[in-house]
């Protein structure tokens, strides 16, 4: 039941992607307050001291989406 709820939520979230965002509409996504580039570096720094204080790890990295600039 829980698994279905999670899968359903994922479907709904990805359903929102049915309308593809065009390249000229991505200006806001490229704004520094939306971008994850800086946050990856900060997250890696934070993960280091959090791992020394907590028993878990992960969730800090990852590549981001494209900006449609060729």
């Amino acid at each position: 039941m829980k698994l279905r709820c999670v899968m359903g939520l994922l479907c709904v979230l990805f359903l929102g992607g049915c309308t593809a965002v065009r390249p000229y509409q991505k200006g806001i996504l490229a704004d520094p307050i939306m971008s994850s580039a800086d946050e990856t570096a900060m997250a890696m720094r934070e993960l280091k001291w959090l791992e020394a204080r907590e028993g878990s790890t992960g969730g800090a990295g990852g590549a981001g989406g494209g900006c449609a600039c060729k």
Partner: protein
Amino acid sequence: MQVRACLCFITVLSLSLATASVCRGVTPQEHSAAYTLHFFSDADDVKVMTHYGNYDLQLDNELALGLQWTHDVVVIPALESAPQSPEAIDAITTASRPISSENGAFEDFVKARESFEGSLRAPHYNTGYYLSTESDYFAQMLWVGYNRDLWNDNLNLSTGISYAWDDIQPLDDADTTGRGGKLQTRHWNVIATQILSPTTVFRLGGEINAVRGLQHDTYRNVYAGGTNVPERHPDRRSRYDVFCRLSQYLHSRASVKLDYRFYTDDWSVSSHATTAKLSQYVNDALVVNYRYRYYTQVEAEFFREEYPSISGIDGYLTGDYRLGGFGAHLFGFLVQWNMKQLFSDVDFLSQTRLRFGYERYFNSNNFTANIMEVGIDLAF
């Protein structure tokens, strides 16, 4: 260990220079550098000062070279008591500090760590090498990543693997009861980033870590069966986590980001971490970020507050509170100031950005910490 660190650093630098020379005839387009000072202090007066230096070189054939250097200094305050005395044993963790009468029982214990990292990034690939060295720990890691944009660049899929190998040699100390050993970590991740609308991005990812080797603290003893015995953890640990993030732009020139991470492993530790972050433009040059994080953890299957016998639980004993059950809160702010207007006439400084942040951490073990960060980013 220091000779090995120097040799490895020279290797990293040589590989970087070799890569750059392979690209000779290619004009470097952009350089950027960043420096961050990170300061951590907790309720036990343990202080960690970390210096981070980054340098990025963008080449005109879409390759980018990255170098990072980190210098950590940890200061653990001295105990005003003789080694092996009850006062010299941490009442919460039953750990004995790595200070002996040979090294001076009343001196602060200071430990330094150096790390270096070199990476190469192309539009769809990235790879790198990392090493860190301290007096009793030498770690190295190699990684490779691949990412691809799909569906008119609305979906980005990335995956990466890494292999890390560590060499642990505890300091020769009267309190040290454990032997050294090796540790290997194999890591794999896959991440999907989906643009949902011109103002919304959703990210979903999963990671697996397979850890093999020495995983307990060689300096730590555990009070069991009426005596102190060396800590013993399993030498195999499989760690899994899934995470997601929703980023939403708000029309007041602000954004909100909601993160969630679920972690579990085969030691029965599981945790939930939820973070909310609000970023707001004060004016064109100033951004303020507020953050709150809530963390809750379930204990490891062999974790006990007290062990009835020296055999522990299935032969394992731990004095590490990190494997226990607890909850934690973190909140703070970060200010970012773009100094373009101040240095618009100075080309070198026209893309300078200053950062200042403060965070407060506390958990249900009555542990509290203050974290401060200042940094400067340069692009030229």
